């Protein structure tokens, strides 16, 4: 028996001997993500100290032969921490990969289908994580989460009206007439971010005479995206990073990724935030006395003033209108989990937010379902879907020419007026103005209701895998569909609707917009690894996008009884606007990575679009970049404080379409006493108009010390916009007042500095700190048409001026010392610089974090003050500190400047704000361990706020304002906006 055993052993040894002699041991295993249980494919596996290596396949399986055991294997993969594992036996291993937490190891997008480890990126791509987006305090809208958190953006709210309305500009003004707002892409779906006017102009007459300028103050549709659903945002700030998105990318691209489920235990998350919002700043009352009232308002008013004063019924109407505390409630419930094959994330969020004006507010319910499924080991399918329903009551504010908006009316409303309704609810007419602001507030409704579906799907297919190369196919499709209803109701009982006051006897404006965008794309990605660590990644693909929007606006005047249906009216008018665009293109890119030392990329996007003069001409957008990681060359020894030292440079081009309709010279349809007619639109189009082309060169360095605890990044960029599309003035005697032309060149140069540090990191106490600095200057470097004024309300009141050699955003006006062009320069809308500070302090169970934002410099055209001056109601009307002679009060002084100098209307709009504050307490686990069988994982309580501290010296509600909405460069015009507000919220969050 024993004999037999020995023989058998010898036999086995004999059989094995050749293996041992020729090589040896075959080690097998699988690479998976420790957090998700998901496979991590294409991991580099190298036997330490040798050139012997391989890569795990699409399923994470690897197999490597080693000469002898024991040995050490090094596993490395982009975005994960590199692991060295001592192997003593040849039993199969599962290598658990940990996603790198340090920012340097995040991945950033570089291709349409691929990403790269941040340490290897050649662009300054900013990213925000979920905790930065909504972890501190839930932002009112998604774009509101971008304030102050990274360098290179100018984020500005158009007004404080509930439901959003923000402008985001990346690296300065990228266009004058065209789009300046970044392209938003959520899980691969192109998102519409339009602002669609509700047709209030029929009442406000703000753009009297059919001017195209939109002063309706609509919200922008990015507001429909629920910040709670977002896992990560990446911001491609200019063409050098965004060239892969081609002809729509000149204003930058914001790439949003939503949360995904993880394999394992199902996690439930419930959170409730409750609080209130209140106005940031009121203008305040003028210091009235009998003499002042008599001088400014006449003898009758003085009598009324004294009477009201004696009866103690002087009313601060501004406070009456804007003094409300609006309640806020945000409820969120989410659930995620799944198996290795199928994972899910689903969530529902309900926001109910009142505004600071009675009757205004915002409600939104959003649902999300994200699914990831692996039907076989070589296919991965993903679905991202969301539905949102929102309703915003935005009130009636901003500029008008009819004295009807609440804001304009308030400028002429004095405290002795009696405007409250009587017992029967009947509002008295305002003797001092065209409208009674209390009645307007209580009876006018201006509502936007949105129903929106966004659905995106992806499929990743592993077509081919071999030892040194693999080929992957990626298919993507996305659909963004929404219906927007706008309803503006002005009942006939309103003072300014009464025919005896020249009113239209009631107005109902109903708008209906259907928007459908879809995009499809397909890519092939090929990876090729050579023996000496030279990796090639090739990708090629095609894209197609389709945009279809149809807006119908019905306005009815002369309403019947209390009907608001548009057919129950004496007169109705219909306006339809259609927008159709088809784009298609291709994309190729080659990346070469030499041992993470040198990473070079070249790429080309070709695009055609129905929005170009020649729809089937391809426009090409190239890109190229290189990053050199000096730290990888072994100049420093292992114990050096240097963790990273990277030099990088990137170049890219991107396009910006002409504004829709700019290709055509057309008539519009009107009538004269029932006789139909067509009259020219005053803007001459151009069939041969070309897209704007942005060329951006950026270079910079990323340096890290002490194991990435101190990171510094500096970037300098030059971006030139060629073929600048201008709506240049045309001699009005041509019959047109302006024309669209490619007629100039605009250059932006700027610097972005970012410092991140973790000064303290102990078990009990962690302190994170981030500072960013951003400065941009623009210049019109070439102008082929005569210089022209644009935006705002003319030179008397301060206007923008496009002039060769000057900043694109300069503000000029008439003045005592005009330059050669006849105007005096009074300012520039561009800030001198912007800084953001953020910090997080974690002490045991307490977590305190905040974000400050400082905008230094940049001027506004403030006409709110002028309107109060003209009505004698300015809070500083009698203060004497403006008049150089020290004679007259500020009010009369400013009025006296009207027509001779615009200087007093151009005001510094600097501010320093505490944008966000969050203070949270994690209740220790032992407190709730015994509840519900111990199934509660975490309970968090907290307080947070938005805009809690606002420091500015600006003579209106808020320096952050735009009467003309988000687009163009002409933001910062202030005409009685909806005032900005701050938010206070209390939080409870439970994970179980």
């Amino acid at each position, binding site marked *: 028996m024993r004999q037999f055993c020995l023989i058998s052993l010898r036999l086995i040894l004999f059989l094995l001997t050749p293996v041992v002699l020729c090589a040896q041991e075959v080690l097998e295993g699988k690479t998976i993500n420790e957090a998700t249980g998901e496979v991590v494919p294409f991991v580099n596996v190298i036997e330490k100290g040798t050139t012997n290596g391989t890569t795990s396949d699409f399923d994470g399986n690897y197999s490597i032969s080693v000469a002898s055991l024991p040995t050490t294997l090094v596993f490395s993969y982009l975005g994960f921490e590199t692991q060295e594992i001592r192997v003593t036996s040849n039993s199969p291993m599962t290598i658990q990969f940990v996603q790198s937490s340090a920012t340097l190891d995040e991945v950033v997008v570089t291709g349409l289908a691929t990403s790269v480890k941040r340490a290897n990126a050649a662009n300054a791509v900013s990213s925000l994580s979920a905790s930065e987006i909504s972890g501190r305090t839930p932002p009112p809208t998604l774009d509101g989460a971008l304030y102050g958190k990274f360098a290179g953006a100018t984020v500005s709210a158009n007004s404080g009206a509930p439901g959003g309305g923000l402008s985001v500009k990346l690296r300065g003004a990228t266009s004058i007439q065209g789009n300046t707002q970044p392209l938003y892409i959520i899980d691969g779906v192109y998102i519409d971010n339009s602002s669609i006017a509700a047709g209030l102009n029929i009442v406000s007459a703000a753009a009297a005479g059919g001017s195209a300028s939109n002063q309706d103050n609509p919200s922008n549709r990015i507001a429909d995206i629920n910040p709670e659903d977002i896992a990560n945002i990446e911001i491609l700030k200019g063409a050098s990073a965004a060239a892969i998105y081609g002809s729509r990318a000149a204003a930058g691209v914001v790439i949003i990724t939503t949360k995904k489920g993880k394999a394992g235990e199902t996690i439930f998350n419930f959170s409730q935030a409750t609080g209130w919002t209140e106005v940031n700043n009121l203008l305040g009352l003028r210091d009235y006395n009998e003499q002042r009232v008599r001088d400014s308002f006449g003898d009758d008013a003085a009598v009324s003033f004294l009477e009201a004063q004696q009866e103690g019924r002087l009313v601060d109407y501004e406070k009456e209108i804007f003094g409300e505390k609006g309640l806020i409630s945000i409820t969120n419930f989410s659930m995620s989990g799944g198996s290795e094959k199928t994972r899910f994330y689903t969530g529902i969020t309900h926001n109910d937010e009142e505004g600071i004006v009675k009757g205004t507010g915002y409600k939104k319910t959003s649902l999300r379902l994200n699914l990831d499924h692996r039907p076989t080991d070589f296919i991965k399918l993903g679905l991202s879907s969301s539905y949102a329903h929102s309703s915003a009551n935005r009130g009636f504010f901003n500029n008008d020419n009819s004295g009807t908006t609440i804001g304009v009316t308030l400028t002429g409303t004095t405290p002795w007026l009696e405007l409250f309704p009587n017992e029967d609810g009947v509002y008295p007419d305002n003797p001092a103005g065209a409208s009674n602001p209390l009645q307007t507030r209580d009876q006018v409704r201006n509502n936007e209701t949105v129903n929106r579906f966004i659905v995106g799907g992806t499929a990743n297919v592993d077509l081919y895998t071999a030892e040194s190369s693999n080929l992957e196919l990626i298919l993507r499709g996305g659909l963004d569909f929404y219906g927007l209803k706008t309803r503006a109701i002005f009942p006939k009982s309103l003072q300014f609707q009464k025919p005896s006051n020249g009113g239209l006897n009631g107005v109902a404006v109903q708008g209906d917009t259907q928007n459908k965008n879809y995009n499809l794309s397909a890519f092939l990605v090929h990876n090729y690894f050579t023996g000496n660590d030279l990796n090639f990644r090739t990708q090629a693909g095609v894209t197609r996008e389709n945009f279809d929007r149809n807006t119908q606006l019905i306005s009815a005047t002369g309403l019947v009884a209390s009907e608001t249906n548009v057919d129950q009216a004496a007169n109705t008018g219909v306006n339809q606007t259609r927008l159709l665009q088809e784009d298609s293109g291709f994309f190729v890119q080659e990346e070469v990575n030499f041992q993470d030392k040198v990473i070079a990329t070249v790429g080309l996007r070709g695009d055609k679009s129905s929005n170009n003069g020649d729809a089937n001409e391809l426009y090409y957008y190239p890109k190229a970049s290189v990053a050199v990681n000096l730290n990888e060359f072994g100049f420093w020894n292992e114990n050096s404080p240097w963790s990273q030292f990277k030099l990088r440079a990137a170049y890219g081009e991107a396009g910006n379409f002409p504004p829709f309709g700019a290709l055509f010279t057309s008539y519009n349809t009107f009538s004269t006493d029932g006789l139909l007619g067509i009259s020219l639109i005053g803007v001459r189009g151009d069939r041969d108009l070309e897209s704007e082309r942005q060329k951006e060169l950026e270079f910079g360095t990323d340096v890290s010390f002490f194991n990435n605890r101190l990171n510094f990044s500096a970037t300098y960029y030059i971006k030139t916009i060629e073929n600048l599309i201008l709506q240049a003035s045309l001699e009005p005697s041509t019959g047109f007042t302006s024309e669209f032309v490619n007629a100039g060149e605009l250059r932006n140069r700027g610097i972005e500095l970012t410092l991140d540090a973790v000064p303290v990191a102990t078990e009990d106490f962690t302190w994170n700190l981030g500072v960013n600095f951003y400065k941009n200057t623009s210049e019109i470097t070439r102008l082929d048409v005569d210089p022209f004024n644009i935006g705002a309300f003319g030179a008397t009141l301060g206007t923008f001026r496009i002039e060769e050699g000057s900043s694109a955003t300069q503000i000029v006006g008439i003045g005592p010392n005009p330059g050669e062009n006849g105007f005096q320069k009074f300012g520039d809308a561009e800030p001198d610089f912007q800084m953001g500070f953020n910090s997080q302090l974690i002490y045991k169970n307490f977590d305190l974090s905040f974000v400050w934002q400082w905008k230094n410099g940049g001027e506004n055209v403030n006409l709110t003050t002028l309107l109060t001056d003209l009505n004698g109601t300015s809070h500083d009307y009698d203060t004497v500190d403006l008049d150089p002679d020290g004679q007259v009060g500020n009010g009369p002084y400013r009025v*006296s400047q009207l027509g001779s100098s615009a200087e007093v209307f151009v005001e510094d709009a600097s501010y320093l704000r505490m944008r966000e504050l969050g203070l949270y307490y994690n209740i220790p686990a032992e407190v709730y361990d015994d509840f519900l069988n111990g199934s509660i994982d975490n309970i968090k309580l907290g307080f947070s706020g938005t805009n809690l501290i606002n420091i500015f010296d600006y003579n209106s509600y808020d320096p952050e304002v735009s009467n003309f909405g988000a687009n163009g460069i002409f933001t910062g015009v202030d005409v009685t906006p909806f005032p900005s507000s701050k938010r206070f919220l209390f939080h409870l969050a439970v994970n179980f």
Partner: protein
Amino acid sequence: MMKNTLTKIFILFFLISGFQACDVEEFSDLNNPEVDAFRDNLTRGDLQDLVGGVLYSMRVRLGTYYDDLGVIGREYWRFSSSDPRFTADLLGKENAVLDNNTFYITNPWAARYRTVKNVNLILEFIDGQDVSAQFTDLEISATKGFLKTVKAYELLLNLNLTYQNGIRVDVADENNLGPFLGYDAALSAIRALLDEAAADLQNGGDSYPFTLTSGFAGFSSPGSFLEANKAIAARVAAYQEDFPAVLDYLEDSFLTLDASMLDEGIYYNFSADQTDILNPMFFPVEASTAGARIVQPDFVTDAEEGDERLNKIAQRSESLTFDFLTGDYAVFRYTSNIDAIPIIRNEELILLYAEANIYQNPSEAVAALNLIRNSAGLDDYDGDSSEASLIDEMLMQRRYSLFAEGHRWLDVRRYDRLDELPIDREGDDVFEQFPIPLTENQ
């Protein structure tokens, strides 16, 4: 096996989407008719729409035009709490001057040239293609006569604003605009254009190939419209101080020396239809400072007792103050927001007849002035019949008869009497003319 099949399916998808991506559709203007669409195939329906557009654009920014003339001519003040420039710039408050890039000149100026362009395009369409299948020669001639008359009138309104600064007359080629002509040259050109239009109208047969609005009632055929053309020419001749020609033109115009026919003439119409314009010269009597026209007080105090033309103003229940100006009366020339505004009417023709006769036949001038006086409830003129006195009287009657119709400022300017207009606030100025808009690049 399964792997292969699936792979094939995906490759198929890939190819399909690649093929799909190739072609992009080209769209025309989805929302509006394009100009070029009329160059090859002008139909009768098209012409009707295009002429309708001319009638529309003639009225755009008319309110601003009348306010420019009415405010500078000190007929009334225009209050606008959201736009202070009506009471600052137009009245020359303190240092304020008329700006060359502000709405009060740029908007009406551009609107008139818009109409001129609408007209020029139609003339281009007619001349640039064979339209004989659609229209007779008579119809073409009638159309040209009508359009040229409108064009001349529109140019005249702009010239009224810029006066000696002049206007461009030849603007048919938008890429090669004609020069600015001074006041006298521009008036001659306008008169020549009117004469050309008159010749076209004379050869224009009995009817237009389009219909006009009710404001042209009685003048809706080429023959009758010729009388309106002559009336406008009479006004132009008066501005030229060519008084014999004024009388000649009036002879062929619709002038009727009949006090019951003062409102005979051609009019702009307005309606509350959404695509139409409301009468911009109407404000309710009790309007607030948001938008009001308050009568300059001298209009009331200077009036002869019993002058019924004071019915063009209405006393407010309370006075209205804005920008240190206070008045008790509102302009009430039009009593609703859909009243028609005259382009030219018989009362003006009678006054032109009187004016021209001051230099030709003073007794006929007095007779005409008396006709106007009597119609306003006043007794016959009892002053002397010296030229100077008659001019005073004629200007006085024009001031009241044509109140708020855009004549007063032009009249005092013609007779070099701008310095006689009242100054309401210390430091105010009376301007003589508007600057040429900045964007004309002059």
